[in-house]
């Protein structure tokens, strides 16, 4: 017996209009259940689109996407999958208690105690109006709403954007505790790469609407190396290794490679952090001139 994948895409494509450009194209990947997945990509790479397809808010234009083996948007999928979109749709004039009651009425299964606890852990009064809450508190209420339905798969579109570091840490801790307690599979998109290092065990990287990476985070990190050395020997790298990104300045070459077998030549080798690998892939394919700007944005 096999456990179905949390997400599985075959030839997945999406565009808003029949003659418009493809936002997602030829996506082919599988994300196992029980993982915490980082969905990474530059702005406009298609992260939100992918999450909205998985949440059933958009319909695939080509190929297929399955969530826990179900078709997104069907009652079966909706009962098991929760999506928290970037705009965090909440009614500003509702109180927090009203908002949770709404969750209870709208969902077939509802964990009132759990939802109330999520809100309480953020020190939020049930009588407070949603419109008067801080961004961090609003995120927490939206998260309580998503967690209250006890999803097996939780999809989060940049949940930490516009939160201060303390609030980010608290929200992340709540998410991790949920995963620990119920084995919830989580897919979250984020630009905050350093925070993914200790939280994510699967990486999904989108570039220009295509899936560039879908693999276990530890293996991804361990299979790559950061090299610095004399430019003369840079030609030796391509075989048998894969050069993800290479930068030459004067006689020096620095390169991020996916290593296959032993290294030849005189290289200073560093083990990259997950962040280094992700930035390398995000920058790959760009010209050297714009690469510096890309780095700042990806790290921001």
């Amino acid at each position: 017996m096999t456990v179905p994948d949390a997400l599985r895409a075959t030839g997945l494509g999406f565009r808003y209009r029949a003659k418009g450009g493809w936002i997602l194209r030829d996506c082919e990947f599988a994300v196992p259940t029980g993982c915490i997945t980082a969905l990474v990509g530059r702005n406009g790479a298609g992260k939100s689109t992918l999450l909205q397809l998985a949440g059933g808010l958009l319909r695939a234009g080509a190929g297929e996407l399955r969530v826990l083996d179900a078709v997104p948007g069907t009652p079966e999928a909706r009962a098991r999958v929760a999506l928290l979109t970037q705009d965090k749709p909440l009614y500003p004039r509702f109180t927090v208690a009203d908002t949770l009651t709404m969750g209870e009425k709208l969902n077939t299964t509802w964990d009132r105690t759990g939802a109330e606890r999520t809100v309480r852990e953020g020190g939020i009064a049930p009588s407070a109006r949603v419109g008067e809450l801080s961004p961090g508190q609003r995120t927490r209420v939206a998260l309580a709403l998503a967690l209250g339905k006890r999803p097996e798969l939780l999809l989060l579109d940049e949940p930490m954007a516009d939160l201060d570091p303390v609030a980010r840490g608290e929200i992340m801790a709540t998410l991790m505790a949920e995963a620990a307690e119920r084995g919830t599979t989580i897919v979250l998109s984020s630009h905050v790469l350093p925070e993914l290092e200790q939280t994510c065990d699967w990486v999904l990287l989108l570039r220009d609407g295509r899936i560039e990476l879908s693999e276990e985070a530890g293996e991804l990190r361990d299979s790559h190396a950061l090299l610095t050395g004399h430019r003369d020997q840079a030609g030796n790298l391509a075989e048998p290794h894969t050069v993800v990104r290479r930068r030459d300045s004067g006689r020096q070459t620095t390169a991020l490679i996916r290593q296959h077998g032993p290294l030849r030549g005189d290289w200073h080798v560093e083990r990259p952090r997950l962040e280094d690998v992700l930035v390398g892939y995000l920058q790959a394919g760009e010209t050297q001139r714009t690469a510096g700007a890309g780095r700042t944005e990806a790290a921001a």
Partner: protein
Amino acid sequence: MVEYRIDRGSGVPAYVQIVEQTERALRMGMLKVGDKLPTAKEVVAATAINPNTVLRAYRDLEQAGLVELRRGLGTFITRSLARPGAEDDSPLRAELADWTARARAAGLERADILALVSAALDAHDDDRRGHNPGDRVQQHDPGDRKHEEEDA
């Protein structure tokens, strides 16, 4: 109960940090046989790391024979790494605290003190081993654990 602190900038994987902090707590007698380790949920709620990381660390500790995973109950210490003399109230420790205070009063920095201690240890071990520094046992070699058990 121990509290884990994860250093995100260190480049050391979180599960290794948990294993090392547990071993240190065992060595210093802050954890004793029969003590329960925090649940994965408690650790991640405090540190915001991936729960699978905690479980991996606990499995490593189990393989090293230091803890036992009891289904539905939790993870318990089954073996101590503490040596007589390393506990909080031991005379050796009190002497060291006293000596540290004197070193500080003499104006030594933390790095100076650590260097002094390392040098004294090296000199002592070299004497005993007939000046063969290559013999020195590495601190973080996992194969070393068995050795320590026999010593204890």
